């Protein structure tokens, strides 16, 4: 009786996608370069200040790699004229290059990116089963995948499930920089997955190793080993961003980050059952 009463009182927890994709007010957004604010001094200061080396300068070009941003918010606090904020969780992309903002220093403008690639149509299915492989992850990207299944996010309502065996899976969710000791196990799990199969790299570590990049004990990114269909940035990747990645893989939403910048939401995303 108590349990029934409690259940009624708890009510419905599941949140609509629109709500989920909104970043809470107190969480820092993704940094967005402001080409006109990037004087040589500011560029140098940004590179010195960022703890995870997300800023890079090449001759004639300044870059911000979102897959190396740990979202500490320090760059924007120090240089509001050079860094704006992108407040969205629809950040999954199909190309690694769509996580990198590139500013042409001569023109003082962003390098235009080509239109994003669509995901493969053979994976545009009403339900998708995933096998998760943690490969050197801290455990927190794994935890966020598990939380994407909780009543608040409820990935099951979109037909997504996590299955015990790769034999039953349509795609792999891989976290971590791929430790050398997990390399073989990851490859074998991939081989055991029937075609057609997809791969989602979940979290910065899985995309380019993040803080582990350069360690001889890690491969430094899932795409060094397997063809990656969707990249979900974040440190760790947040559950709504993971949902966005899975919806992108199943062809139900549009990619919004192009060349590291947010495009307007298109009419396509309205098609998802909310």
């Amino acid at each position, binding site marked *: 009786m*108590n349990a029934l009463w409690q259940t009624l009182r708890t009510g419905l927890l599941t949140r609509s996608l629109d709500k989920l994709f909104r970043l809470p007010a107190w969480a820092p957004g993704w940094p967005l370069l402001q080409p006109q604010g990037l004087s040589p001094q500011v560029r140098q200061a940004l590179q010195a200040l960022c703890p995870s080396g997300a800023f890079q300068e090449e001759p004639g070009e300044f870059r911000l790699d979102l897959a190396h941003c740990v979202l500490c918010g320090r760059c924007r606090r120090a240089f509001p004229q050079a860094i704006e904020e992108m407040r969205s969780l629809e950040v999954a992309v199909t190309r690694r290059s769509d996580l990198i903002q590139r500013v042409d220093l001569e023109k003082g403008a962003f390098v235009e990116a080509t239109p994003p690639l669509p995901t493969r149509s053979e994976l545009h299915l009403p339900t998708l089963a995933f096998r998760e492989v943690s490969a050197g992850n801290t455990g927190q990207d794994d935890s*966020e995948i598990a939380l994407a299944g909780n009543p608040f996010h409820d990935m099951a309502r979109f037909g997504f499930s996590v299955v015990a065996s790769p034999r039953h899976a349509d795609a792999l969710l891989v976290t971590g920089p791929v430790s050398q000791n997990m390399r073989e196990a990851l490859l074998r799990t991939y081989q055991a997955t029937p075609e057609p199969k997809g791969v989602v790299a979940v979290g910065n570590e899985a995309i380019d190793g993040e803080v582990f990049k350069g360690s001889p004990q890690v491969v430094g990114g899932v795409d060094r080993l397997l063809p990656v269909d969707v990249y979900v940035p974040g440190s760790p990747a947040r559950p709504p961003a993971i949902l966005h990645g899975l919806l992108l893989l199943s062809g139900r939403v549009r990619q919004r980050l192009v060349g590291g910048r947010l495009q307007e939401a298109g009419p396509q995303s309205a098609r998802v059952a909310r």
Partner: protein
Amino acid sequence: MDALIEALSQGRLVALDYQAPTLRYFVERAEKGLEVLELEATTTFPSLARDFPALDWFERALWEAHGLHPEGHPALKPLRDHQKPYPFDPIEGLHEVPVGPVHAGIIEPGHFRFSVLGEQILHMEVRLGYQHRGLEAQMQGQGLAQALLLAERAGGESVAHALALAQAVEAAWGVAVPPRAQVLRRVVLELERIFGHLGHLAGLFTDIGYAYAATQVGKVRALLQGQLERLTGHRYGRNAIGPGGVYFDPDRGTQDELQDALHDLGREVGAHLQAALKHPMVLDRMRYVGPVSEAQARLLGLVGPAARASGIARDLRQEDPLYQPFSPVVRSGGDVLARAQVYSEEVRQSFAYLERFLAELPSGPVWAKEAAPPPAAEGYSRVEAGRGEVFYWVRLEGARVARARLVDPSFKNWRALEIAVRGMGLPDFPLINKSFDLSYAGCDL
């Protein structure tokens, strides 16, 4: 040597480190604080692992990293290096069940080798190292900001690791952290503990098919994570702590709202846990399952809730002036139920401390005054994380880490699983494993 053996027999080993040509055993003093017992060694050293299994993995790690041979080690084999051959314990005439490294759930990788007679587990060996990322080596030569990012990714508990590294640096430099920052650090540490413990409990309820309790506990856990994010800007409390202070500073409004929210969450989850842990189904599935005796716990050198559930009244918060008066939560059964009870009671305890910390939050700055770092310094620190003691030792050259040695509580507690599953049924393994809920990454580094 005598002092070392005495400390080991009382389960007071904290860490083992080697800096040529000296082995350094960090042990807890009988009264309070740490001491370092040293032993010269160039190519070999006497192994004590046969009598004191707490040293087993420490000695193996040392052998693997420095080539120093522990003479008389009962089962010398690699720990994190998968290039070398790994002989499993020879068990003849029994059926072997290999599990992992890729498991069925959403969990980190590790390998378990069961030797079973029918359904009964007679022997189990844990083989880890799959998560090894070379973290300690990676820390060498890094600036403090980079070292902190690595610390936050060392094990499952970002706050405790960042705090331990920050405190080690502060100890080395003699930095006095302002009172407000001290209390705020403990607020996030307790939030992390509750978040972790509720995760272990929800997992246990899921494993026995008690979906109602799992969902209710999971709901509170998700809302609590929201509060941690509200305070620090991060869902796991990363980017929140630095040497000398904290990166967040709640205003009065946030502090009040946090206090109210935590009050409600604490009451809600407390009621659920109290009812759930008395449920006949829970008692039936958890009692007498996966026991670790107090004597075993001392020999293995267990820490944290795993030790306290086996009757060892040890919690580093006993020595922290901000927590006084403090009495550790202790149970004697050492089984899955005892560990669940410790988690549940510690959740209640942490909510009570949170209430006190937030009500008495001092005002003032959240950063220590900046001073130029000395050219070279050394320091260590210990933090009671959700899973037990996190230990950091660092040598700094200016503001760079010249060398770091860290021990995650999971490194000490994994062996307990091997003991706990003996004689149990194979299907109970997931439940027993979940009752310890250890970090693979923290162990493998």
